[in-house]
């Protein structure tokens, strides 16, 4: 049971990465901050363009399709849909480059 050759998970199974499923409250706070930063960029663009009475397809489409941080449910902020996962959800940190990409909407019902 004890000693150098005890059968731990990593010794018997090789590589073992323990990545917590949930984000900590600080990680969640930073995630919300990043979401709001993107919202503020879009809001700045929108304000500047409407002042000159121009519309841009990219901005209009974003406003139409994407919820702002305050409108999102916590489930969508911190996890994403994945058809291969149990209960169809996995932590958002499994998304490659998750701190630098926008992933806001998931399939309805999941």
């Amino acid at each position: 049971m004890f000693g150098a050759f005890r059968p731990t998970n990593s010794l018997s199974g090789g590589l073992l990465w323990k990545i917590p499923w949930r984000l900590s409250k600080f990680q969640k706070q930073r995630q919300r901050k990043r979401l709001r930063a993107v919202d503020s960029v879009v809001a700045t663009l929108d304000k500047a363009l409407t002042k000159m009475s121009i519309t841009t397809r990219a901005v209009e489409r974003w406003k139409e399709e994407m919820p702002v941080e305050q409108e999102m449910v916590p489930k969508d902020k911190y996890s994403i849909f994945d058809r291969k996962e149990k209960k169809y959800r996995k932590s958002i940190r499994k998304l490659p480059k998750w701190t630098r990409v926008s992933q806001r909407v998931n399939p309805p019902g999941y």
Partner: protein
Amino acid sequence: MSFFRITLTRSGIGMPKRTQGVLKALGLRHRMATVFYPVTPEVAGQIMRVKELVTVQEVDKALTKEELRAERRPEAGFYLETAAPR
């Protein structure tokens, strides 16, 4: 005539080639680099491609490189601190 003041706050390393190309086209070569562009739909579309990586402000006039440098320069001289009452 108003301008977008665009500062790259997150690096584009590891992002798709298209995203890195937009950063290059905007002239944002490294983090905290600041560029000014007039408010046009074209620039707005470019910013939308890299919106996660930049911070944007709308300003009335584009600053030159020297003015940007002067903005970061700390004030000359010194001031005396007084002891806080205990």
